[in-house]
């Protein structure tokens, strides 16, 4: 904790400041090469889907911002062929789910959506971008989660129910570290449990 952080918390400002800090979507482009490494070194192929998780704000202006994001993604649908849908999970969090067989297009679309949130002034409401992977050999699932709050990636490998495969997660970390900015503190590797044990976090 730096001096500035100490002063901020001494005056009781940390919570407000950190919860309203804007996100930096540029980090998302790191996923493009990560897709290649995942397949070449770890046999994990793209699950052809990625998603953006955000928490809502109770205001009309925010609803307008979400509409703006939808409009932009609709326009992009014809361009890149990336299909998109909205989803609200059991915890009341919102998702923009994007589906495309080309990982490059997925990354671009996720970035596009995230960037629109930032431009509309709601970058601080972005929680995570989640990129899905599958291992054809045994059907294992893994995700790279980009935390907008931390500005770092972490692996998430659910095994059905509320269990995660820690060994696989550490393996993903060791292979991708350096390529992606991986969160060093595992205390921040938050699970994103899917509502349906066999589904993706956004299903």
């Amino acid at each position, binding site marked *: 904790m730096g001096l500035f952080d100490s002063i901020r918390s*001494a005056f009781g400002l940390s919570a407000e400041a950190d919860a309203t800090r804007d996100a930096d979507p540029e980090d998302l482009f790191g996923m493009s090469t990560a897709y290649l490494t995942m397949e070449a070194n770890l046999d994990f192929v793209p699950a052809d889907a990625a998603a953006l998780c955000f928490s809502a704000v109770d205001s009309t202006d925010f609803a307008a911002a979400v509409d703006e994001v939808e409009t932009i993604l609709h326009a992009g649908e014809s361009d890149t062929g990336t299909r998109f849908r909205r989803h609200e999970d059991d915890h009341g969090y919102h998702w923009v789910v994007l589906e495309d067989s080309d990982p490059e297009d997925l990354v671009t679309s996720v970035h596009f959506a995230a960037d629109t949130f930032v431009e509309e002034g*709601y970058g601080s409401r972005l929680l995570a971008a989640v990129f899905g992977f599958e291992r054809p050999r045994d059907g294992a699932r893994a995700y790279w989660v980009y935390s907008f709050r931390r500005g770092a990636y972490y692996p998430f490998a659910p095994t059905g129910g509320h269990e995660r495969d820690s060994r696989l997660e550490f393996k993903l970390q060791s292979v991708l570290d350096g390529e992606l900015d991986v969160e060093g503190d595992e205390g921040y590797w938050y699970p994103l449990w899917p509502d349906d044990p066999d589904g993706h976090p956004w299903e």
Partner: protein
Amino acid sequence: MEWKPDWGLRGRMVLTMFLLFALYIVFIAILSRYMGLFGVVIVMGLFSLGQFFFSDRLALYSMGASKVEADEYPQLHAMVGRLSQQADLPKPTVAVAETKVPNAFATGRSPKQSTVCVTKGLLHTLDDEELEGVLAHELAHVKNRDVMVMTIASFLSTIAFMIVRWGWLFGGNRNRQGGGGMIVAILVSLVVWIVSFVLIRTLSRYREYSADRGGAAITGNPSALASALLTISGRMDRVPQEDLREQSEMNAFFVIPIRSGFVGRIFSTHPPTEKRVERLREMAGEMERQ
């Protein structure tokens, strides 16, 4: 998402901390003339350090709260997890207290060691959005390191209290200016204790406002916390008296303290609910107007 910073609140908080600091400096300066401070500071330092390190367990124990796992309270855990993520905090330990009084508190010396505790009554009384508001308020306390700030702010106040309480025991031997020294020291300590008590309580109320703002920033929904505060305070007035007295020592950590009619407003650790609700509504209004 932004709203205008509450400069009034910041200014008052800085002023309170400055006054407290100045008071302590004067206190030490006067006290060191009349008695050897070294022993007192060492003993009290150890005491405060102990309090700092064990207060969380003590608080949980005295509330009859125990840590709960994710499979016992999956929803609560998921909620705390997501809110911590938004607040950029590691996920705290989650505890539940077996009492019907709806309340919540956060303890722990640092964000990594923190525990957020809710009572069963709170889980039953509030709906999901309101519960989120209260949990975010507690996470804001963790984020602002309120346990550490209040422990440091109270340190010399506790010493002053100890001197008032036990000073006469050491009356004869340590003073350097004859028999009257200890009496002066006790009187000065008494004044310092009273003034610092008021200042510390004031600081505590400002930090509540800060945590309300922080919590609202985390959930993006100031009205939910406002409605939770109203629900809780409405409920608390109807809870039987025995329960209330049992809980009253824990007041400082609660999201809403239990009312006791004769204790004046300046001694209260929390601002009045109506004022907090009013400020949260202002925040909600600002969000619409931006």
